[in-house]
């Protein structure tokens, strides 16, 4: 059985027929070929697949594509504008907030959600706000520094 969905992804309207069980992350990766959203655990524990759905961070491995019908999705590919990286992307680069890069797209989108709700967070608030996203490389310190720097620059 196929189900029709219409989703705006990074500002572009998309219409497809999908299996009802298709996960949003697989829709993004396999149907739209937007592979920037990574799958780390398939069980919503690591946060690597975090995207913004109508501005809110969601773990796209536990959202069905049909649930996203009618919504607007922002993935990591949609953050840079006119060839210029988003302030969070710049800050992660500047502060060495990434190593292997696998958690980075989800981490940045979770941080974007955090900053949109709390534009001037404390260090503790950043750490708490990102506790749904695992990073095995950086020890988080430079990620936290990057989010604080991005908040400063906004």
């Amino acid at each position: 059985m196929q189900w029709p969905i219409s989703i705006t992804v990074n500002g572009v309207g998309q219409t497809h027929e999908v299996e009802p069980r298709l996960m949003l992350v697989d829709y993004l990766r396999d149907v739209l070929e937007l592979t920037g959203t990574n799958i780390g655990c398939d069980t919503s524990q690591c946060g690597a697949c975090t995207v913004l759905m109508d501005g809110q961070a969601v773990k796209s491995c536990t959202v069905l594509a049909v649930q996203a019908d009618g919504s607007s999705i922002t993935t990591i590919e949609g953050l840079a504008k006119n060839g210029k990286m988003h302030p969070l992307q710049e800050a992660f680069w500047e502060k060495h907030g990434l190593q292997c890069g696998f958690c980075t797209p989800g981490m940045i989108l979770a941080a974007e959600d955090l900053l949109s709700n709390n534009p001037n967070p404390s260090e503790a608030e950043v750490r708490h706000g990102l506790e749904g996203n695992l990073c095995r490389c950086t020890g988080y310190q430079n990620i936290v520094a990057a989010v604080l720097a991005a908040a400063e620059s906004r």
Partner: protein
Amino acid sequence: MSNYVGTSARRIEDPRFLQGQGRYVANVHLPGMAYVAILRSPYAHAKINSINIDKAAALEGVVAVFTGQDLVDGGLNPLISGWNNPDQKNPPYYQLALDTVRYVGDGVAAVVADTAYIADDALQLIEVDYEVLPVVVNARAAVEDGALQIHEDTPNNISFHWPLGDQEAMEKAFAEADHVIELELVNQRLIPNAIEPRAAVAQWNAMNEEMTLWTTSQHVHITRVVMSAFTIGIPEHKLRLLAPDVGGGFGSKLCHYAEEDIVAWIARELNQPIKWVATRSESFVTDRQGRDHITEARLALMSDGTITGIHIKTWANMGAYVALVGALIPTALYLTSISGMYKMPGVFGEVWGVFTNTAPTSAYRGAGRPESQYVVERLVDLAARQLDMDPIELRRKNFIPADEFPYQTPVAIAYDSGDYDKVFDKLVELSNYDKMRQDQQAARDEGRLVGVGVSGCLELCGLSPSALTGSLGFAVGQWEFADVRVHPTGKVTLHTGVQPQGQGHETTFAQVVADEFGVNLTDIDVVYGDTATVNQGNGTYGSRSAAVGMPAIVMAAEKIRAKAKKLAAHLLEASEEDMVFDQDEGKIYVKGSPDQSLGFGEVSFAAYAAHNLPEGMEPGLEAHAYYDPANFTYPFAAHIAQIEVDRDTGEVTLQRYIGVDDCGVIINPMIVEGQVMGGVVQSIGQVLLEQAVYDENGQLLTGSMMDYALPRADDVPNLELGFTETPSPVNPLGVKGIGEMGTIVALPTIANAVMDALAPLGIKHLDTPLTSEKVWQAIQSSENGG
């Protein structure tokens, strides 16, 4: 123009990761590709009576289903051990089990389908008749007489017994000791959990009989040799392996894995591109796991604080089979450095590698060295307590003095360089140690359980001298390879045999190249992780990239500079001996006449234009080099932690963490600091949170990220880090490894801090992880607790 080494250059590789353009294996998509899912044993030990694949094969969208027998019949040979200790037993490790499964996760069948979803559906339709067998999961229990035998011809489940050192000297030290410090400890099993799950994609070209395999590997060349010579048998020149971007490794992507063979074999069998990506549940049960040592240790001590000997017995849990480098970790990477930073005459240890019904163990960040340094640093801490000495003072009293390097230890190896007082001096200053102790006393006076723990550590790293590791058991060489190609316009492509999984090689290796020729960082491209473009290599593990990979660049660059000087001399009509290669400015000039010069780009162009070359000179400007070091390198560190234990809940709060590391000459301070940060936090995971728990049936109880507690952002504090630089005399750059030290040193540092906090309660030792429950229980049953 140049002088990039020593600067915190922003990472060249970052823009693609930041914008979702990482080249991970799971992103490889090929036309006509089919997907593999693997049926895993739900039992830790069982006989397979039969496998019925009919229903699975009949499902719409299923292309094929294969069992272990199909693979054997199709010419696939079992996995091998690449490190072989004397008399080591390596029972066959089939990619898919034939008649017996020996751990939960052991492969049983492989389904190929049009989509990953259908492949997963089909797994549920395979019917396996298992006859469940008894299970042993603990290494000490497995060696007992009468324990069940997991493999044929392996009495007491022992794969190998590896003694090292001078037993007589050790016994003499203990006979003459004023005090003997004894400790039994468990270095718990850990699951690496790189955030990128393992994956493999294979494409067979039937016309040319060529295989291309994308794989999440830390060493594509070694895996290619293994697959060519031992498992699938595709000739090496017809087998291309690529590991473009790898999303974290930490040793777990070091071994050659069954799935690499399975995917390649199926792609050839079906003549169709094939993809497999592990689920996280699969990662938990099939990725190589780390540590899992049971150790009895003792330290010989004189009343004045002089340490005279150490004696170690360790039972290392190898899991159900010997993984590719599984037998290296608890032997040459463990016992060789059990005397740590300390000078002592009586050093002896022995290890038993033991089979159990658990996932195979192998390298996990630190790999053998967190185990050794933890043992010695816990013993030294207990020695200080025994003598009521300050733990730093007792350490200083026993350090190998700075003027005795290179220092031949009583066992096998020689430390290249060190200045252990220097890192402790800096640590004492950075941490304000005396004040920490005063504050601790004030807190204790209030009845609070505050602890301060220190540890020094060193790391045998930079694998390594090929002749030495070959004599100890390694099947392959341990040199490294660099191929430096200067293009006609003076741009440079470096092909290196090491390959990052997040360490930033594209930046640090470019920094080294830039300084060799005096060119811009942006004029350099670093290529790795592809056997077709990089001729040879041994990959990245054991903190070897800088110490072994970078010197090969220097050797190749020297050849290029020599040729460039010869050509420049010819073009400038000067004597070759008078030519100076200015590595700061990127130009070649005549000594004493700097205006008589040619830019590096001009010489490069002339080398390829070949209009006017000296007689006998071939066109072109490129060189490769193999670097086989004379020794390992030995970075070292001194760290301190302040923790507080909540007496009511047992919760440990890490209040301050300060570290000083010395990895020789630093190429990029930002990246080096990042390596220490990440390493320390992984170790915080080991000390406070993480443990792979198998129940008595061999079921992994911690098989998800909900059950296996990885450190999250709000579990850890900001670290305060400092560095000293004691160059290594081993290599021309003076560099040592840094990838693992944080993981090695934080374990004893924090464990010592917690034990220091609990000392007033008479608690001597608790095994990690020091969870709230464990600490609370200890407090309840302690003499002064409750």
